[in-house]
């Protein structure tokens, strides 16, 4: 329960961080909030030569507005996102989900960027980010590139962030006026999601005009329930209509089996939680 020793650098700019990353290569680990990395190091599941701490790079912190997007710096803590009126107003689904991440202590150090790059399929930020069609700003020695949410999550703990690159921000399209709900199923409060469903919908005159649904822990990456989204469009926001549309929530998923549930149970939960999330998001 004590980490193997490592070298530590704390650059103060993205440029310096990239340089440090280039220099260290494979032997480096990037430290964001450390709420997942530190237990991993302490269990000696990973023993990097060098840890590059992004915590002193001010340009990576904070929430701002850029036209139709809310921009969240990768090193913004969960707590700061949770407290952000901008996020609450334009991307309330993210606020919902972050209120369910681990416990308050973890939320004060854990960062949104760190969680997204760690890409644990049971983590709570991926599915809402996916549902909100977030753009991921990735910076490398060659400059900045933007990756669509659909292309960001590649596999278990694998993302589009390449070697020598950093996730520097996410750009969340504004969903102002959309209803939202993150339905998380756990047995005790601070647990990782057994299954969770992120739903945000735009209701127009009692009818669902648009819907975005993300699934947590239903496969090796966060997933988008596009079949459900399509089925919901044009439907009345009633229990029966939503139930019918959400029956397909687990279609095409490959959920894990573990101590808290087998894949059948998770498929079942996905349909139930999708229905609950959509109904709540639609204000039904």
């Amino acid at each position, binding site marked *: *329960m004590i980490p193997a020793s490592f070298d530590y650098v704390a650059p103060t700019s993205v440029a310096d961080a990239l340089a440090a990353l280039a220099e260290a290569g494979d032997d480096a680990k990037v430290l964001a909030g450390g709420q997942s990395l530190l237990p991993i190091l302490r269990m000696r599941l990973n023993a990097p030569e060098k840890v590059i701490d992004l915590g002193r790079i001010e340009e990576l912190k904070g929430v701002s507005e850029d036209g139709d997007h809310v921009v969240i710096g990768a090193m913004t803590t969960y707590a700061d996102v949770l407290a952000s009126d901008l996020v609450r107003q334009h991307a309330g689904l993210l606020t919902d989900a972050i209120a369910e991440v681990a416990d308050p202590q973890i939320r004060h150090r854990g960062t949104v960027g760190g969680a997204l790059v760690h890409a644990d399929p049971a983590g709570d930020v991926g599915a809402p980010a996916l549902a909100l069609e977030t753009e991921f700003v990735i910076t490398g020695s060659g400059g900045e590139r933007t990756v669509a949410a659909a292309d960001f999550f590649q596999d278990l703990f694998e993302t589009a962030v390449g070697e020598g690159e950093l996730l520097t921000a996410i750009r969340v399209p504004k969903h102002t006026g959309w209803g939202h709900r993150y339905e998380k199923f756990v047995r005790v*409060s*601070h647990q990782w999601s057994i299954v969770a469903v992120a739903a945000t919908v735009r209701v127009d005159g009692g009818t669902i005009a648009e819907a975005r649904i993300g699934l947590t822990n239903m496969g090796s990456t966060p997933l988008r329930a596009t079949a459900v989204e399509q089925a919901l469009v044009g439907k009345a926001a009633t229990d029966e209509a939503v*139930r019918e549309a959400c*029956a397909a929530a687990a279609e095409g998923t490959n959920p894990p089996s573990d*101590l808290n*549930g087998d894949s059948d149970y998770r498929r*079942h939960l996905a349909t139930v939680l999708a229905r609950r999330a959509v109904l709540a998001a639609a204000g039904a």
Partner: protein
Amino acid sequence: MTSQMFGAPVKRREDPRLVTGGGRYLDDLGHSALAAAFVRSPHAHARIVDIEVSDALDVDGLVGIWTHEDLPGRVGEPLPLLIPHPTLTHGRTQFALARDEVNYVGEAVVMVVARDRYVAEDVCQRIRVDYELLTPVVGIANARDGSALVHDDVPGNVACRMLQEVGDVDAAIAAAPHTLELDLDIERSACMPMEGKGVLARWDSDKGELRIFSSTQTSTGVRAAVAAKLDLPLAKVECIAPDVGGGFGVKINHPWPEEVLIPWAARLLDQEVKWTEDRREHFISSAHERGQLQQIRVGFDDDGRVLGLDVKFWHDNGAYTPYGIIVPIITSTQLLGPYKPGAYRCEFWSLYTNTVLVTPYRGAGRPQGCFAMERTMDAIADRLGLDRAEVRSRNFILPSEMPYDHGLLFQDGRPLKYDSGDFPASLAKLKALVGWDDFAAYREQAEAEGRRVGLGIGCYVEGTGVGPYEGGHIQIETSGRVNVSTGLTSQGQGHETSFAQIVAQELGVSIEDVFVTTGDTRRMPYAVGTFASRAAVMSGNAIALAARNVRAKALRIAADALEVSAEDLEIVDGDIRVKGAPGTHMTLGTVSVMSNPLRYAFDEAAKAATQFAGTADYSKPPVADDDEPGLEGKDFYSPTQATFANGMHAAIVETDPVTAEVKILRYCVIHDCGTMINPMIVEGQVHGGVAQGVGGALYERMVYDDSGQLLNASFMDFLMPYASEVPHIETDHLETPSPLNPLGIKGAGEAGCIPVTAVIASAISDAEGFAITSMPISPVELWELRQRHARGEIPSLRGTRHTPSAPVTSAPVTSAPSTPSREAP
């Protein structure tokens, strides 16, 4: 403030220190000690082929590395089997460091001592142990099968088979108008105190003395064990339990390997050495409990009265049996609860598996027994279509039948004889508290809202305050300060407070003047330990007796000095005065001075005492032949048998018709531990027990895979209830004094957790309409049971008053459901 101490909710004395971070737990001591760490077996069953340390030797800060072959004399012999029993025919214990074979993942193989823990763990990682893998025996089914053996010389993996029978069970059941059979299963859990174990040892080479600090529930036990292992005179070893961050049973087993090895290393190195268990070590190398398969056959009459009860169970004792078979013996006897079983037979097998060992966890076998009996009571009620509380009450032992002898031998080897208890009164209180008779209406209303709710009940009797003895010592200083010591230890039970209350009450002093020390072998070398809900009963009564002795002596001396009769004196706030004439008085401090003929006038009290000094009688020695100097008293309390507390719990749960999530809506407790010393502390103990019980019912289990790896050895995966999972607990008390001891008290420590698993199983069964027979239960398990129930593989309860809902699956449903539902599938 001296007369009403007993029974008052006095705020705890230890608290100002503890809330400000001033508690001194084991790892808070020994700041400059060398640190030990252990290489532990990664395999459940293997032979050690080779241990290679050469890569580790050049680590800066390494002090030493030891394996079994380095351990001399008794240090290298197996650890003691603490509590032998004639039926424990194949008891086995481990070596402090594994010799040739390892029998569970986590068994210590190599000890490393280094400058600090960081270095020690680096060294551990560089040590390579080669193993030859053996077939692991995991789970009760595999242990019973016996085709693979944990210990080559233990056939069938059976450590013990024990049978007790009262009456002719086969005849009683054969003659009974109704019979039922139940197969039950209860899984492993663990104490999991927030502070793990830990040992710090200091060797004083000038005096040849060893001082051990251990996070233990028995400092006298550790002291004696280490003295024996290290071949030291008892007088040269002392053991102190500092503040202990929770025990719940796991710290009563002793000596743990580390409790032998760390003192041994400290003496060898002539340096202070410390080991603090980390959380993973606590999971894989401390101890677990629960873990039984049970088969029950019961015969009963038309009224639901039990005529014959036949219980067989198989108990998983893990890889070794250092603590004997206490847990299964308790299950087999305490299973009976508040009931008369008619004829009773219990046969059990305690089995070895290649898993971490099993020693008592709060409740110590009782939760398993209560589960067996209470599931049986519910089954009888259901078979006959009777109210579940009514069936229980028809089987109760009545107050008029006390004391009630079951004709069995209890855990202490003495007759299982209940001393007192008013079970009908407890049940009446419980029914009133939970609203038993109004539940049908509540259920109807809930069902109309599409909610599924159930009511559960569970009753238990707990033998508390088992012997053999505890002692109390009281010494009053010339300042009037009252020093109290008792040898057993504290892990948060508020002993400093309850014991001070007893002394304040018995002596007639202010509680502020009373100072209690527990768990220090320097102050009270004869003691047993804190377990089996025995501290208040045993030490409380010993301290009360000691206080009465001191009081008598103080009155005798004062009567002499004041020239009155002792009967005419009273003690109020530490002042001895003549009843009705408070002007004639002297303080206890003054009496303390007078009690010691070595009366240097070093302070005001000593000067004041001289005015009472009578004329010396030169024909007598300064200390009379039948007297001792000083105002001290000591006594021991050693009861003929345990005293039996009882309680009854009820819960209302809601099960989500779709996700099968279980929520506890209300949890009600009626608790009878005799006369209460401090109701606030009793309440806290009950709450804590229920919280752990809720964990055991809904969340906590130890999940081993077939190879004997513990899959959930962290707080991320072993789920324990937080504030958000424990319901508000409603309590009410009954105080049926014990006739067995001077204070009329019974133990309260374990009570809260005993029936919770049974109560929650009862409530879920009631909500679902089929019997729950395996606990703990998770949402996915309940969801699967619903599907099996729907397929007809699990019978419906007959007496269920509501329509069991169809199972909810993920399949889309096209027609409206027939039963009203908040949320149709």
